[in-house]
């Protein structure tokens, strides 16, 4: 049992260390680098007629642009996670989407996701740590219908992390991408029902005795998958496991299987 006295010593040591730092704030303009902070907005500005008209116009533009984007959505677009130096995957810069900030500079050096809450009727929690000393890897979920990012985005959680989807151990019954976590799989390709293709490289999660898959992203719920398949180093297709879909069903999901998983 650690005594309060020792905890006080720890407090004191931290305080001493902190006090050794003398750092005055630089000019604000240097930090926000735009000079006058024009982006500042009052919490609830009262709007005049002109402001409301402008807002209505902006809303109309958003609707039109959104409709155009929907009609011309990027079918067949392929997003690949390119390997960084050392073979580690790096997130590409994606078109602005639900959580654009993540992809600006995120390096997917490992899998790290935290999300907890109730989304779409399912409660889930991911904790997948690469540097956790092998101690904390837990997956608890009732159902998974959406990305953790949706939760982070809804809650305005700052700096949310990329999402891990699937792992070879610690998951219930062949869930997700189990079966493709094999040594001979060098790339995983996911085709969604609307024809988009996502490819990503498997990532070894050090210290966690598991292997995870990092997916790039957008809002890509599991039931939107059409097929999941692996590619070996030579590009030969390795069919994905039916467990991807079985897992959804076991969790009470509503995924339908329009085509055989792994079918070409």
């Amino acid at each position: 049992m650690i005594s309060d006295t020792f905890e006080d010593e720890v407090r004191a040591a931290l305080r001493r260390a902190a006090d050794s730092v003398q750092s005055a704030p630089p000019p604000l303009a240097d930090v926000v680098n735009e000079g006058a902070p024009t982006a500042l907005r009052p919490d609830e500005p009262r709007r005049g007629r002109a402001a409301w008209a402008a807002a209505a116009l902006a809303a109309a533009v958003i609707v039109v642009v959104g409709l155009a984007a929907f009609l011309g959505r990027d079918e067949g677009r392929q997003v690949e996670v390119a390997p960084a130096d050392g073979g580690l995957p790096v997130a590409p810069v994606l078109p602005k989407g639900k959580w654009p900030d993540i992809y600006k500079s995120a390096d997917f050096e490992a899998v790290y996701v935290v999300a907890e809450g109730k989304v779409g009727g399912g409660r889930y929690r991911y904790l997948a740590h690469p540097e956790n000393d092998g101690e904390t890897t837990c997956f608890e979920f009732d159902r998974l219908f959406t990305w953790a990012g949706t939760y982070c985005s809804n809650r305005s959680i700052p700096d949310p992390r990329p999402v891990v989807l699937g792992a070879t151990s610690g998951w219930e019954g062949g869930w997700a991408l189990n079966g493709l976590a094999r040594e001979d799989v060098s790339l995983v390709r996911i085709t969604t029902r609307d024809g988009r293709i996502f490819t990503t490289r498997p990532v070894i999660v050090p210290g966690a005795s598991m292997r995870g898959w990092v997916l790039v992203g957008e809002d890509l719920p599991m039931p939107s998958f059409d097929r999941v398949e692996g590619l070996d180093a030579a590009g030969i297709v390795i069919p994905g496991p039916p467990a991807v879909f079985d897992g959804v069903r076991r969790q009470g999901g509503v995924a339908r299987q329009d085509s055989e998983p792994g079918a070409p």
Partner: protein
Amino acid sequence: VSTFVQQRETVAESGFEALYTERYTALVRLAYLMLGSVHDAEEVVQEAFAELHRRWGMIQAPAGYVRTSVVNGCRHRQRRAAMARQREQRSLPPDTATSGPPGDPLADAIARLPERQRAVIVLRYFEDMSEAEIAEAIGCRRGTVKSLASRALAELRRVVDR
């Protein structure tokens, strides 16, 4: 109307500046304890404030937001550094940064703790955050926070007793 809005913007701007002035140094110290480098700490804090600035007006609790951003920024940086070391196949020595004045074995021992344990110790005993707050900040369960803190304290005690 425009004058009114301008006044409100001025108020919002001064609110940001006040928070920046009030919390900057404290947050640099927090980041320093987690990173062991004043330079890195300043960068992380400045990035956090820049991010807050972009979202100012949309954030309900800016002080908590910027602190969480700093914690996340530190952890992100630590992970990058750890992975860089792994890429170099451990050709570099482990993190030898010290977080205290020379000759402070306890502070040195804190600086040598694994990243998550150090984060918990710093947030618990420097920031006086509750277990629940720490759990939310570093993204784990309260039980994990307890476990990390317990192990970290045990390790620190072991080092100090040695």
